[in-house]
């Protein structure tokens, strides 16, 4: 077997050195009747060529985003990732390294994490950021738990503009922890009265911008009221590129920012792995979950980086830890930070302008389709359409026309009476031809 270096001769020699006759003698702690007599009922080893054929055939049964006009967003976005990013993250020294517990031989990882943290802090307008979470939804759920720790309260208020999956994750975790979640009803046009829900019992208000329907939210009034009541504002985003064009949550008063970083550097990959971004104020840093890289010096006085503030973590505190997390999204952070370095401020802001311009053009073109209405006053690169038919059926019909048109709202919010709503996203990958194909297919199927 190509992955196993030992030969039978090696095995015999080693068993002799150990002083046992067979390898099974090393497994005698397993109760004999529990030992498997035969291998599992699964196929035998395959060569590389056969594995490629097997998995290649599965891959070929999926319609990839690049192969069709593609307008799906709702928490994951199709962006172009430079070839350099994928090349670099496959460097053996990055790919096959471990959590940098031995910092002297892990400065590569530690330095990029330090750079990543700084980029995330800058981007969100916050003071500090951690070295990433699993994804945006778990980052948001951890933000709520953190807000509880900071405020010593246990009730979170969730805007109706939050991505339903995110709201569900927050709810699941809060239910498990015995905390309370007040989830406002779906708010398609950003008209909910969040302020009314804030009182002295609330630990945090969680608001997403752009929200799941694409609306941009001005957080300032919410921040003010939350702060007046001793609560925190948790700002959530699912489209990191928006931060290149839209006011940063930090500038609008957010205390914790949790978001999804997939858009920068990471593939769609059917939902994972992604990279959760998490930033907060300096004063809350010891309540922050997740791994942190920090600057220090070595025995010769040279600058170096280490994992730090690990007393917050489960290795040390065990059942008193801020979180049970002991993984981050290392390689996805790396992809994020490389892509962000390539973009820089000029590139990110331009990318954001291209996204917005493409979305505006698309919205205008779709608004002209009879029976179709764009519901958004404001948006970045995603907006909500009202269709004259159920959106799910329209999306299926358009897929037959080789256009992936967006996410039917009932897929996210079944039974909410929003069956005729469709979320549509447009990024830099969309061309005029893509937009024309969308309009033509939509006109056809309506």
């Amino acid at each position: 077997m190509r992955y196993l270096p030992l030969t039978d001769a090696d095995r015999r020699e080693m068993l002799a050195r150990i002083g046992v006759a067979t390898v099974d003698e090393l497994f005698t702690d397993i109760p004999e009747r529990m030992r498997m007599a035969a291998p599992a009922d699964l196929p035998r080893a395959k060569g590389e060529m056969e594995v490629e054929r097997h998995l290649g055939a599965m891959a070929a049964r999926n319609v990839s985003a690049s192969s069709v006009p593609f307008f799906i967003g709702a928490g994951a976005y199709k962006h172009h990732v430079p070839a350099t990013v994928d090349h670099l993250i496959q460097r053996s020294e990055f790919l096959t390294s471990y959590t940098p517990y031995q910092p002297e031989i892990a400065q590569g990882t530690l330095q990029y994490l330090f750079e990543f943290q700084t980029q995330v802090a800058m981007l969100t307008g916050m003071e500090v950021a951690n070295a990433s979470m699993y994804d945006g939804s778990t980052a948001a759920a951890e933000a709520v738990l953190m807000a509880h720790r900071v405020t010593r309260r246990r009730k979170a208020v969730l805007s109706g503009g939050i991505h339903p999956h995110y709201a569900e994750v927050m709810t699941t975790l809060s239910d498990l922890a015995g905390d309370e979640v007040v989830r406002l009803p779906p708010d398609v046009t950003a008209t909910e009265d969040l302020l009314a829900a804030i009182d002295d019992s609330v630990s945090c208000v969680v608001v997403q911008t752009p929200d799941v329907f694409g609306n941009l939210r001005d957080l300032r009034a919410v921040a003010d009221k939350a702060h007046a009541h001793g609560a925190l504002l948790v700002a959530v985003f699912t489209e990191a590129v928006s931060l290149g064009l839209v006011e940063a949550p930090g500038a609008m008063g957010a205390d914790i920012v949790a978001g999804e970083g997939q858009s920068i550097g990471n593939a769609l990959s059917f939902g994972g792995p992604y990279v959760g971004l998490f930033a907060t104020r300096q004063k809350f840093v010891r309540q922050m979950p997740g791994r942190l890289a920090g600057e220090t010096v070595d025995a010769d006085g040279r600058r170096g980086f280490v994992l730090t503030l690990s007393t917050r973590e489960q290795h040390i505190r065990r059942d008193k830890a801020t979180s049970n997390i002991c993984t981050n999204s290392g390689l996805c952070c790396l992809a994020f930070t490389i892509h962000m370095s390539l973009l820089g401020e000029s590139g990110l802001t331009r990318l954001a302008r291209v996204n917005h311009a493409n979305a505006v053009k698309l919205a205008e073109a779709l608004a002209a389709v009879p029976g179709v209405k764009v519901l958004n006053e404001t948006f970045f690169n995603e907006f909500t359409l009202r269709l004259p038919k159920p959106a799910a059926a329209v999306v299926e019909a358009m897929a037959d026309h080789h256009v992936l048109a967006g996410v039917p709202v009932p897929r996210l919010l079944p039974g909410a009476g929003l069956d005729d709503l469709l979320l549509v996203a447009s990024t830099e990958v969309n061309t005029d031809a893509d937009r024309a194909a969308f309009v033509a297919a939509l006109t056809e199927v309506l």
Partner: protein
Amino acid sequence: QEEPLIFEFGRTDVIGVDLDEPAPVADRLGGLKRKDTIGLPGLSEPEAMRHYVRLSQKNYGIDTGLFPLGSCTMKHNPRLNERMARLPGFADIHPLQPASTVQGALALMDELAHWLKELTGMPAVTLSPKAGAHGELAGMAAIKAAIAARGETATRNVVLVPDSAHGTNPATAALIGFTVKAVPAREDGTVDPAEVAKLAGPDTAAIMLTNPNTCGLFERDVVEIARVIHEAGGYFYCDGANFNAIVGKARPGDLGVDAMHINLHKTFSTPHGGGGPGAGPVVLSDRLAAFAPLPYVRLDDGRFSLVEHAAVSDQSPLGRLTAFHGQMGMFVRALAFMLSHGADGLKQASEDAVLNANYVRACLADLMSLPFGNRACMHEVLFDDAWLKGTGVTTLDFAKAMIDEGYHPMTVYFPLVVHGAMLIEPTESESKASLDLFIATLRDLAFAVRDGDTARFTGAPYHAPRRRLDETRAARQPVLRWTAPAPVAEAAE
């Protein structure tokens, strides 16, 4: 040459990605346009390439040398798996595409689930957890839900956790409101069912047991422990971090396990990537299957679909633990690893991993101390620091001296149950020649300790990108991000 931070040489007007400026449109930002500058430095592509290549050169990886980090399972990461995960049909599909356009992806998840269930002998699996600790959360949440369904939420709230457990175990239990009670290990490093019986009772929600345990030993009384817990009405959560030792040799389902997460990045070789991403699917017994989190894949008449919402009639009160369906990229890699090995190869891999660890044990037992005696271990061998006593060399010093010999150190100071622990896991990926060189190096170092060559250890590492780093300073005065240096008044010329 030192490698500066991107903030020290990047510039906000430099670009490494070419995009045309769009034609102006009437914006739809409603006045929320960003006003301030961000300060993000840009690098041209050549600068970025060199910066990250040079950073990588300061790292150690499996590809560069033996990585004997016990409990972490640093095995070979086949590049076939990387290639497969990058097929556009897997990497370039959106989680919310219509099911008709992702039948292959759903089929892959279904096939992975089948392998995991067969290998563990468990009837159900949830794929969505994003990492081992997230899997623990999913499994313990299922247990909590099952207890709730029995109406025992108020009374059944204690989770038993052995001292040797990973820190994530008690952290997870506590996170979701359980009370944690420690189970002491007996002298041989394993859990005594009698001890468990003493602690088990009507308040017992579950035991969280790692098996093989973090001392590298198989819990030989696991069946009895399961019986005791079940008899008390509790559930058996198994931490599957060390499943790699027994794949193809024993099935957790046969041992009485109710829930177990599987670290795909350990047992099934998806790359650790400097700390992630991982993937932590959880297999479940019949008693817990109904309480798995959403979503899951279903097959009806040859069509796969994804169940994303609980039907009203559904038993499961447990919702989502993450936005989408889990770590697809890792599923592809893990399945490629499984298919490549086959049932026969996976069993052989377990045997080789155990053989390698025991070979290291046998070759070092005369010099280093084994806390539980010189008996067979599983995939990793645990030494303590008894043999260093009085030498002026600590476990940490010894570890750092290994760096100077070109090796990544083993896991140190874990598990907590032995003093100055050194936990060595060679994995099945090492050849005998590689182990022989490693053993010779450790023996040489051990003789140096004996010979009183203390400075070789206390000052180590000498030959690494950095000498020993001051972790205390980092924690006391945390500097967690770069900030622009204060402008220096320029001297008049």
